[in-house]
């Protein structure tokens, strides 16, 4: 009798451990790219995932980071390198380019006008929707530091916070889908 009780207890703890291993209905994305087309795809997947009932977390790192800068905001107190990076990297969504066929900006301009004509949502519109849907955005602290960005120059986005690699891995470990874009 005692043996059975011990067995039941062991089984229960096993089930509890298994429960912990089942990931949440969540998608974790790393947005590494700073290309307009790739980031747009990331946001289409993000908003679509919300419609499919999933929780969505996006991690912006390296070239993805400058997309989250707000062109209307100014950040002071930068060193020379920070100023250089700040000037060279795109400031927000309106300065990002296509990964292919940019052709000195002509391709990107053509794509933007085509998107408008075909009613395809712009990157700005997609980001607005993502915010409304509660898509969480994490920004890589190391990229911010490396490129000399200040938090004051980043966009106002209600689900935005800063993190390191462990935060991403914790979220990815608890996600059914992980993407690197």
């Amino acid at each position, binding site marked *: 009798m005692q043996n059975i009780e011990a067995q039941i207890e062991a089984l229960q703890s096993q089930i509890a451990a298994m429960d912990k291993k089942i990931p949440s209905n969540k998608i974790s994305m790393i947005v590494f790219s700073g290309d307009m087309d790739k980031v747009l795809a990331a946001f289409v997947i993000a*908003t679509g995932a919300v419609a*499919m009932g999933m929780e969505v977390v996006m991690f912006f790192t390296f070239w993805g980071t400058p997309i989250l800068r707000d062109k209307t905001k100014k950040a002071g107190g930068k060193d020379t390198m920070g100023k250089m990076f700040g000037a060279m990297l795109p400031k927000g969504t309106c300065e990002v380019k296509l990964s292919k066929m940019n052709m000195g900006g002509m391709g990107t301009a053509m794509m933007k006008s085509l998107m408008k004509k075909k*009613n395809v949502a712009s990157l700005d519109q997609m980001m607005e929707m993502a915010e409304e849907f509660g898509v969480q955005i994490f920004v890589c602290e190391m990229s911010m530091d490396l490129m000399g960005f200040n938090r004051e120059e980043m966009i106002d986005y209600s689900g935005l916070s800063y993190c390191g690699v462990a935060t991403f891995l914790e979220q990815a470990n608890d996600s059914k889908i992980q993407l690197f874009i």
Partner: protein
Amino acid sequence: MSEEMKIAKVMDLKGLPCPMPILKVNKGIKEVEIGQVIEVWSTDPGSLSDFPSWARTRGHQILKTDQNGDVTRFYVQRIV
């Protein structure tokens, strides 16, 4: 589906490309009661595959799909 199917709401999503139809229908279905049916018009060719995928994942039911030229009408019943 018979004529007596009651439509609680009609959504005109003509001209909207991916991912908008799915985002809109997902929002729209929440605005009717469980058991009620919405009629959705879409011209996005991807909707033919996307609506069933969305409905299966969210647990709703597509009662009928009517294709007429470019426009597809989906009759979706809110189940959950």
